[in-house]
């Protein structure tokens, strides 16, 4: 093959690649971008709750039992517990993330270990869609848990409802964000990060300076922080819905 033929072949190959690249970019641009509301609607009515929780009913039940046990424990506290144990703020900072983690990590690990993760990743509704939606529902469940726990503490133990609810709200979504990002970044190994954060929060909750630090932050700041983290969480979940720039390996 002479030089001219080689050059022509190279140009043709380059041109072919350019045409293919343009087609790919065009297809990517024209791709339907579903919003979060459409994602929720599609999951609820397209797939249904029964299939969303398929195989992890036991984990969902366990989470409800854990949350119920915490509520029952709080309900049994003496009336002046808020004054007796100032560490209650640190404990509440860790409580709703603990419920969240119990559900999500167990469900995720069960999915990865025996739930046909790879096969689900090739379905229309992938394992990541399921995880994202379960996180969303778990977030709602934990917010209800927060309000119930804060209400009980306010009534039974004389703590400030708004303050404790705001602390729990922000901690929940801070933890949720740490968890999803670490799972997306490191896959199954990423479970270590939220577990370590949780352990740290539980250990820290026994120190008075930590509780004092938590209380030194204004309630409004917690509300704003929680709201920002909630939006960030939603944004990440939506990215999973639009998928797979973050494929879990």
């Amino acid at each position, binding site marked *: 093959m002479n030089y001219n033929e080689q050059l022509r072949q190279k140009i043709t190959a380059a041109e072919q690649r350019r045409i293919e690249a343009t087609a790919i970019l065009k297809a990517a641009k024209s791709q339907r971008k579903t919003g979060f509301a459409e994602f929720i609607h599609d999951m609820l009515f397209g797939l249904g709750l029964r299939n969303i929780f398929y195989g992890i009913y036991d984990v969902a039940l366990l989470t409800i039992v854990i949350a119920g046990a915490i509520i029952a424990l709080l309900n049994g506290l003496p009336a002046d517990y808020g004054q007796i144990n100032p560490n209650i703020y640190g404990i509440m900072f860790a409580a709703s993330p603990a419920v969240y983690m119990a559900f999500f990590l167990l469900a995720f690990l069960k999915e990865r270990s025996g739930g046909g993760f790879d096969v689900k990743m090739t*379905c229309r509704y992938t394992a990541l869609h399921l995880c994202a939606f379960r996180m969303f529902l778990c977030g709602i469940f934990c917010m209800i848990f927060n309000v119930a726990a804060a209400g009980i503490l306010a009534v039974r133990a004389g703590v400030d409802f708004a303050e404790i609810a705001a602390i729990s709200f922000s901690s929940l979504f801070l933890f949720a964000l740490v968890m999803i990002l670490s799972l997306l970044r490191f896959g199954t190994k990423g479970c270590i990060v939220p577990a370590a954060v949780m352990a740290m929060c539980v250990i820290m909750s026994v120190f008075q300076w930590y509780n004092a630090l938590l209380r030194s932050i204004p309630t409004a700041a917690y509300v704003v922080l929680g709201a920002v983290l909630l939006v960030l969480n939603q944004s990440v979940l939506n990215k999973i819905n639009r998928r797979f720039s973050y494929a879990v390996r």
Partner: protein
Amino acid sequence: MLSVNNVTMKYGNHTVLDDISVDFENGVYGLLAPNGAGKTTLIKLLATLHFASSGAVLWNGESITALDEKYRDIIGYLPQQFGYYKSYTPTAYLLYLSALKGIPHTAAKQRVEELLELVALSDVRNVKLKKFSGGMIQRVGIAAALLNDPKVLLLDEPTAGLDPKERVRFRNIIAGLSKDRIVILSTHIVSDVESIANRIIMLQNGKIYCNETVAEVCGRLAGMVYEAELPAAETADFSHNHFVLSERFEGDRAFLRFIGDGSEGYAPKNAGLEDVFLYLYCDTEGGNADTL
């Protein structure tokens, strides 16, 4: 048509697939290579479980990543390890996967019945999966891969754990399915693909070594395969001086199949796919690709 265009796949510094290009049309493609050669990586790439470091996979000219769920709707995938929930029946599990694949419930029920019949599991449709043998689980996996009547069927080591009878049944199922779809079957077991594959794709050092019919692949060893009958005691010496493909002993006689140049007076034999596989992927560094 499914096209793999200049795809490179790297894990850190290790290149598993190196600038490979291949087009798939309807028929059975046997992806044949030893363990660790990149078969699973290629299958996972086609199943959208991995993303290429560079290059693209196109379905009818469109990137499978951009096609997203439209592409996933037309693929069926059976991984090496088919995960399942042990406490569920095959019917329940397949109906669940049908829901994930977006198949309406009524259509799914009928499809699941058909598929359980096809893989000969209709008698145990309501038995829990934890009571199934490895072969039965694999058949559930095959049924799962066929739920959406896929245009592209990706099977990664599908006959692992199957007994000979089940292997034959599996081959017949695949042969029957290949008329109007692409079936890509990765294996290191030559007999899995020898009789059913329209084309054999062999990987060598991360590149496609060949993409040919079985006859063409076998033709690479034409006139090079011989069989010698020797006293059993002489096999060690013979093996030392020849590339022996297989040995068979009958009493004190040994029958050795080997690669030769015909200079020793033995009659040449027809080469089989297994001969090519053994010769290409021999233990010497880089195999014998250069001599074929």
